[in-house]
């Protein structure tokens, strides 16, 4: 009983936490030379548009993490052949696709206002595009196989192969175009925003709080989805027996 109450409390905390992050991320003022806590730096060339970092970057990170998690459960499925691992694998892939689409859409709307066009084939846009293609292919493959064990095995194999090939883009993309993206190593305006420089302490605190909020939401959503899929599959199995 106490576990249930704790669980509910945890979700309420997550709700309040995220609300606070949204209010701070969008509400705090931006000034040219932030001197005390609660003032965000005004990055020339980005201005108010810099606020997207609190939402866009965590979704992009999560779409990669979700892909890796899905691949991890795929490997576990191949080793142990437990149907539950496949449910987890497909759930994480589905949420990954959702976050990947969110990151693409938010990024490209932002790009329209900042760079003047929705799509520029900047290296990061190319990599999110590739990630979208991989997710798309993964689900296309799943929908084309009827037998559940075969579907689980083959989609796990595909995601592992994709996971092995994806790192190649890291070596290739810098040769395609110079980066426009804030945060590219060669960005003349702001330099690498997340890894160094660009953010001050307040911004960093909000940014990582936002990442935590997104991860919390992600865990909650995947948990709901896994439980729902289990129920659906149990129901199907029951109806097939009769």
């Amino acid at each position, binding site marked *: 009983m106490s576990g249930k109450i704790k669980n509910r409390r945890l979700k309420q905390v997550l709700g309040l936490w995220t609300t606070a992050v949204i209010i701070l991320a969008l509400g705090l003022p931006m000034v040219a030379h932030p001197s005390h806590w609660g003032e965000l730096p005004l990055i020339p060339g980005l201005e108010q548009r810099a606020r997207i970092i609190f939402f866009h970057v965590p979704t992009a990170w999560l779409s990669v993490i979700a892909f890796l998690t899905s691949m991890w459960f795929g490997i576990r499925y*191949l080793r142990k052949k437990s149907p539950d691992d496949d449910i987890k694998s497909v759930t994480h892939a589905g949420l990954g696709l959702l976050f990947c689409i969110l990151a693409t859409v938010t990024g490209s709307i932002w790009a329209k206002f900042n760079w003047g066009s929705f799509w520029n084939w900047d290296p990061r846009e190319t990599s999110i595009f*590739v990630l979208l*293609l*991989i997710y*798309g*292919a993964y689900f*296309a*493959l799943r929908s*084309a*196989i*009827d037998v559940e*064990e*075969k579907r689980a*095995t*083959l989609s*796990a*194999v*595909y995601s*592992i*192969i*994709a996971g*092995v*090939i994806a790192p*190649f*883009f890291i*070596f*290739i993309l810098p*040769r*395609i175009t110079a980066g426009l993206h804030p945060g590219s190593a060669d960005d003349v305006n702001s330099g690498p925003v997340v890894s160094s420089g660009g953010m001050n302490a307040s911004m960093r605190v909000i940014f990582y709080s936002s990442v935590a909020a997104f991860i919390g939401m992600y865990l909650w959503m995947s948990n709901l989805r896994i439980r729902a899929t289990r129920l659906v599959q149990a129901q199907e199995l029951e109806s097939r027996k009769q």
Partner: protein
Amino acid sequence: MEDPRKMKSFLVSTKAVFLKDWRSELRTRYALSALVMFVLTTIAIIVFAFGGESPSQEVLAGVLWVIIFFSGMSGLARTFVAEEERGTSLTLQLLSTPTAVLFGKLAFNVVLIIIVNTLAVLLFLFFFSTFRVSSVGLFVTTLALGSIGLASASTIIAAIIARANTKGSLFPVLSLPLLLPLLMTVIHATSLSSEGAFFSEGLDDFRILVSYIGAVTGVSYILFDYVWKD
């Protein structure tokens, strides 16, 4: 594989798989005719589309690899799909180890794509007089490594889609994300070669291609058992 006798039997078996596919191909000409016709029609369409224009070397390099990619997509799945459609996969499973099947079919696809790519390049040089190959060594190496890479990724994907219901349409969908790093690299190296760059300038690209081939072949070798046996 440490055992030399096992290694020898693996090689003999792989060669047998390759020869079986090759002789079957010579009798039915199924994949080869599809590939050759694909290359011919695509090049004809592109010639008409460009009209009298002479596009830049970079565009031509891209177009050449687009032709090669899609012709590969029309023929490279054949070797696995044919086994599945005719119901002979079970027979092949009874006769040979998964590893020999994988590498035999990989060898077959490499030979097939090299033949088709040579043809595509010859036709390309014939129809597009503006397409220059200034550094032949760089170009030939790119073509060879590109073909092997294309075959290595398509072979494992073909093995996967052979087990699915909608075989044909799924092949390019699954292959494109995996082949993109290869295509980007070979297009880069091809435009280098038409600019007349030194061989050493292509070394970075070749390193990427070789490690790509190694990674794809390695992961196929590890995972093929799961794909091949239900």
